[in-house]
């Protein structure tokens, strides 16, 4: 979540990384959980017993059991189906925001660190400005101006998300570009683009992957939180945060309704955190032993 805890450019061998991950039981469990969640998201239409948005007021707020394993919500919609379909939005947003922010930030950091000078100065001061605003305040400001909805939330998350990646990659590039192999590439007359992408970037990639993995739960939490406030995903679309928000109104009469969506957000965030922590430990030999953080 924070850039300070990741040590830049530790190179690794693929086999070594794999064995480090499989030895780390927590990360392994997290990985399996992520795969399960992806499976649920992909096959939600086949796994769900009912249509997640079809209303049937005659069957509102049914207790769990029988035809509706988790019961129904205040509109008579099947809760299990909605929870399963909810995985689609959350995971899609997580991967999309995490991936796009990582790619954008990576290239901005690469260019800033490699060319230096005025360009670097301008880009880094820009990151200062973005970091001068608490994330959620910026996201809320964007949603407040453009209007509530998933599209605007995702836009705000991407516009804000590249910053830590850019700073991380720039830091790595600054030290990498002085190394012999980069000088050799330059002496061979390779183009700047080729040196940046083919020679420098691969060495800076490890920490970016870690940060991206930890950025995914961050984005998922942000979207769920905004939907909970009624500003993100709008009903009747099945989304966990929005479902929790709807569950609030019948909290006294039917509290069970808010267990499943919250649990799903929790498990999803936990799964990605475990994988991210595991990757970080695997990439950083200093932490690999007993200093598990």
């Amino acid at each position, binding site marked *: *979540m*924070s850039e*300070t805890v990741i040590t830049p450019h530790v190179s690794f061998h693929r086999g070594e990384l794999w064995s480090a991950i499989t030895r780390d039981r*927590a990360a392994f469990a997290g990985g399996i959980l992520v795969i399960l969640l992806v499976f649920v998201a992909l096959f939600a239409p086949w796994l769900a017993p009912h249509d997640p948005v079809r209303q049937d007021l005659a069957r509102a707020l049914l207790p769990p059991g029988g035809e509706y394993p988790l019961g129904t919500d205040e509109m008579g919609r099947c809760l299990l189906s909605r929870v399963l379909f909810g995985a689609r939005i959350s995971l899609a947003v997580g991967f999309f925001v995490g991936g796009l922010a990582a790619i954008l930030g990576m290239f901005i950091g690469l260019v800033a660190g490699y060319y230096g000078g005025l360009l670097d100065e301008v880009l880094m*001061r*820009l990151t*200062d*400005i973005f*970091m*001068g*605003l*608490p*994330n*959620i*305040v910026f996201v*809320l*400001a*964007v*949603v*407040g*101006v453009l209007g*509530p909805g998933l599209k605007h939330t995702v836009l705000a998350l991407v516009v804000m998300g590249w910053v830590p990646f850019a700073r991380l990659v720039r830091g790595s590039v600054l030290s990498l570009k002085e190394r012999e192999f980069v000088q050799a590439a330059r002496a061979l007359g390779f183009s700047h683009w080729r040196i940046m992408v083919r020679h420098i970037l691969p060495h800076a990639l490890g920490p970016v992957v870690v940060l991206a993995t930890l950025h995914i*739960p961050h984005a998922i*939490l942000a979207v*769920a*939180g905004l939907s*909970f*406030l*009624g*500003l993100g995903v709008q009903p009747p679309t099945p989304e966990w*945060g929005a479902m*929790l928000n709807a*569950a*609030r109104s019948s*909290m*006294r009469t039917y*509290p069970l309704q*808010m267990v499943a*969506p*919250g*649990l799903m*957000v*929790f*498990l999803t*965030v*936990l799964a990605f*955190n*475990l994988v991210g922590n595991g990757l970080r430990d695997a990439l950083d030999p200093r932490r690999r032993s*007993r*200093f*598990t*953080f």
Partner: protein
Amino acid sequence: MFTYLLRRICLLVFVLWGVSVLTFTLMYLLPGERARLVAIYRWGYDDLSAKELATLRREIGEDLPFPQQYAWWLGRVARGDLGYSFVTGRPVAAEILARVPATLELAVAAFFFAALTAVPLGIACARRPGSWWDNLLMTGSLIGVAMPNFWLGLLLILIFSLTLDLLPVAGSGGLAHLVLPAFTLGAGMAAVSTRLVRASLLEVLAQDYITMARTKGLGEGEVLWRHALRNALIPVFTVLGLQLNHLVGGTVIVENVFGRAGVGQLMVEAIASRDLPLLQGVVLFLAFCFAGVNLLVDISYTFLDPRIRYGGAKGNE
């Protein structure tokens, strides 16, 4: 130290300027929208003729070029005039100030809860890594980090207010109203910080000067309290600064869950009612506080870390 502080303050001014441009640009992106909202507020409808719209736009300065509009707006903000709320018609600054106590109370309570649990628990874990309490607390902190605060808040209301009937469900007021929100907001921070205190202390304890202190016969207690802890707490301090980000974000959600009339809740209300001047004001206000607290964190560094005091800026580069 002086140059370091001067640099931080210059950066602060620059960041605030940047945030003001960013905030203003966001509002500027909606041409005609502001005039339409003003019209709804004044007359209750917005189907103005082209001529009326043009007059209104001139009146609120929306027809001026961007730099002029920005300068005009910044001049007013500098004098503490954040405009008037579309909904209540009261000055935005007054609306915000009325909500500050509830937020401040919550944030301070949560922060102290987090700090006062994280430091002792982190030390306990670091003294015996691998012990049963270390494993238990580290598992607990994993759960705490992944717990969405809106869900935690709802569960706490369900258990302590609705089922056990021990604490009030919502609203602001006395200490009883503060317990659940402060715990909800502080739990995640406590979880992150505990892990950090532990990791940081373990790292320091593995260093040569600690071995030296042990070799010369100092007791474990003295090694820990006099030699290790002071160095271990510097990175913790950094992260407490970073946690400010989560603190602000968490405040918005926790205030919503518990129906506290704070600044975060004001912001959500402003968005729901499309009250742009109010929204703009809250964003600026929060950015200002955020930058201010960050500066305070930086200043307190210079007291904690002599390396900064004597020149070698270790700040944010």
